């Protein structure tokens, strides 16, 4: 039985335990897929061969999977209903396609917080204890101002890696994305314009670098303290711990400005190619029970979607990587405040031009007005191509 996930998508300990636990009935092969996961999974499904039995589905990609619900087994037919009240209702609903099929079983939620290197903040004369950072960097204005101070006091240091971080998080703080329930393009409306304006502002005030996220140069800058902040979901903790392990003890977590955004939070699914769906479902529900989800939080920063996990001891443990901070203190309340949004299947295609163009503004210094009009004309083209009304 083949399980596909990605690095940090599930706790490796839990996966190992699952393998051992079900060893007598199946040979559970858990494979980590690198690169762009969604593209690989969908290409494999289209290729009709070697399709995994259990497939992880990234939250931000759900829009691409839900219209293809017929490639997955409806989990309700396997008895999912009886687990419903163990999970956060809004998270549970996100795994459903428009026609009512249950495609994904909840793994984690993605409450976004502010990860920062406290020693750099202290050196720059900024508040550095989590409570102070949460209190004082509570608006975008204050956040940007802190970035300017950081750059002045420690030249060569930038608050954030790229403007996309600002843009996407502001959009994800709200309840609307790029296409609404009626297949109408809403990417030119207030909520997106506002996010765009803030991102442009961030660039203008010089608080973002011109490095590209995910490159060796960016990682070394983080390690050297030149990029001390990032706005990331709970699962981003795993990426930090693995990408820049030498920063252990230097990071803390605080609230992000205004209110928490929701970024990601994934699901497990059973594909139509699976020949033992009941067994697969049993494995899924075990991996994603409250106790194992708490373990997932400890190992990979996967904030549980099972409220029963929250009082468990593991959630209250101080995390040595974050200097002994109990990170649940931040993520717990944040998860409560998440605003649920409608994810249209066309969000990915129609959000891409905006993300590309704002990146051009940030990395290449493109004129923001031209970038916006280029993005809009690209969106118009794509909308027409996909049958979304503009």
């Amino acid at each position: 039985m083949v399980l596909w996930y990605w690095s940090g998508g599930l706790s490796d300990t839990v996966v190992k335990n699952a393998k051992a636990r079900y060893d007598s009935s199946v040979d559970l092969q858990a494979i980590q897929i690198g690169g762009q996961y969604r593209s690989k999974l969908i290409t494999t499904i289209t290729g009709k061969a070697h399709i995994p039995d259990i497939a992880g589905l990234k939250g931000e990609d759900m829009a691409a999977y839900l219209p293809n619900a017929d490639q997955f087994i409806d989990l309700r037919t396997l008895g999912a209903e009886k687990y419903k009240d163990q999970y956060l209702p809004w998270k549970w609903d996100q795994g459903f396609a428009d026609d009512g099929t249950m495609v994904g079983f909840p793994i984690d939620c993605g409450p976004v917080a502010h990860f920062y290197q406290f020693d750099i903040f202290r050196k720059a004369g900024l508040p550095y204890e989590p409570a102070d950072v949460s209190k004082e960097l509570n608006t975008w204005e204050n956040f940007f101002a802190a970035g300017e101070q950081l750059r002045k006091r420690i030249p060569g240091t930038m608050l954030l890696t790229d403007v996309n971080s600002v843009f996407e998080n502001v959009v994800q703080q709200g309840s609307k994305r790029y296409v609404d329930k009626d297949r109408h393009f809403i990417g030119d409306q207030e909520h997106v314009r506002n996010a765009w304006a803030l991102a442009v502002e961030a660039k203008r005030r010089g608080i973002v670098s011109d490095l590209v996220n995910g490159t060796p140069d960016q990682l070394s800058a983080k390690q050297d303290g030149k990029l001390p902040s990032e706005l990331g979901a709970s699962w981003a903790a795993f990426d930090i711990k693995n990408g820049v392990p030498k920063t252990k003890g230097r990071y803390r977590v605080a609230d992000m400005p205004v209110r928490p955004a929701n970024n990601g939070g994934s699901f497990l699914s059973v594909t139509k190619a699976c020949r033992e769906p009941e067994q697969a479902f049993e494995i899924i529900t075990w991996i994603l029970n409250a106790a194992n989800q708490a373990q997932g939080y400890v190992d990979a920063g996967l904030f549980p979607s099972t409220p029963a996990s929250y009082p468990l001891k593991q959630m209250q443990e101080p995390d040595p990587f974050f200097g002994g901070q109990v990170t649940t203190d931040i993520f717990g309340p944040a998860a409560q405040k998440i605003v649920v949004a409608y994810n249209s299947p066309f969000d990915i295609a129609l959000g891409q031009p905006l993300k590309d163009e704002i990146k051009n503004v940030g990395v290449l210094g493109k004129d923001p007005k031209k970038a916006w009009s280029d993005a809009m004309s690209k969106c118009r083209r794509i909308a027409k191509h996909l049958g979304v009304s503009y």
Partner: protein
Amino acid sequence: MAVLEQTPPAVVRPSPSQPKKGLRKYWHLYAAISPFYLIFLGFGLFPVGFSLYLSFHRWDGLGSMEWAGLSQYQYLLSDSDFWNSIGNTIIIWALATFPMIFLAMVTAVMLNSAVRFKGLYRVAYFLPNVTSVVAIAIVFGSIFSTNAGMVNAVLHAVGIDQVAWLNTPWGIKVTIAALMTWQWTGYNAIIFLAGLQTVPGELYEAARMDGAGPFQTFFRITLPLLRPTLLFVLVVSTVTGLQSFSEPQVLLQTSSNDSTFAGGPGHSGQTMVLYFFQQTFDNNDFGYGAAVAWGIFLVVVLFSIINWRLVQRRGD
């Protein structure tokens, strides 16, 4: 050997009547070419036809196909990213091919003159071609990295500011071109060298006796005689260069959740083939992908024709 008294068997005994036997006479020829043609028809010809058919439809590979008429091609013409990828491909090709041919020729001429160590040099120069292209692209990505790369370290030592090679539109193109040049110069130098070695020594003797200097000799004698080889190298470089995929893909992939076929900031390194893969496999847009592939075909054909014309004319 051949003994004429013996009547040779089957071949020289035509059957007068049946025309059916005509084709059957050739069965062994058809049989000989059939392995090739069977595969060719199945995996070469049929796909091309199907691709054309597909380009007039909308399809995501999973559901059903819908007729789309010419709309995919209209979409293609209005796609600024497609035009961008054409520009990128041609610029990168030019940045790589001209220096590469120049260096290869110069190297070949020098190797021709060097009596000692020639074998060693040939091995050393061929080395870049004997590698895994993905591995080399990974290594080059590291050499050209902004903070920790060798190139910037050298620039720094000479007092020049560091360049964000993989982060700026021109930096990206130059890096990809540098990789391609590095890989192919030695290979082509050896091909040129072989061409040079067919030039009869007497021609050079005669030229020297006429008082020709090294440059004159090169341009009047060597170059014209190298033309067939030059043509060969140019054609192969064009065909492979216009279809470059591995080098830009590996150099510009990041470990974030972005597309692996995006080609860096501003899609500056996105070649035509990279663009094709992005549209087809990231967006699952098979109909559009087919149209893109035909667009690439047209560009390659046009470009090859222009290329051919130019080189022909220069010769006359």
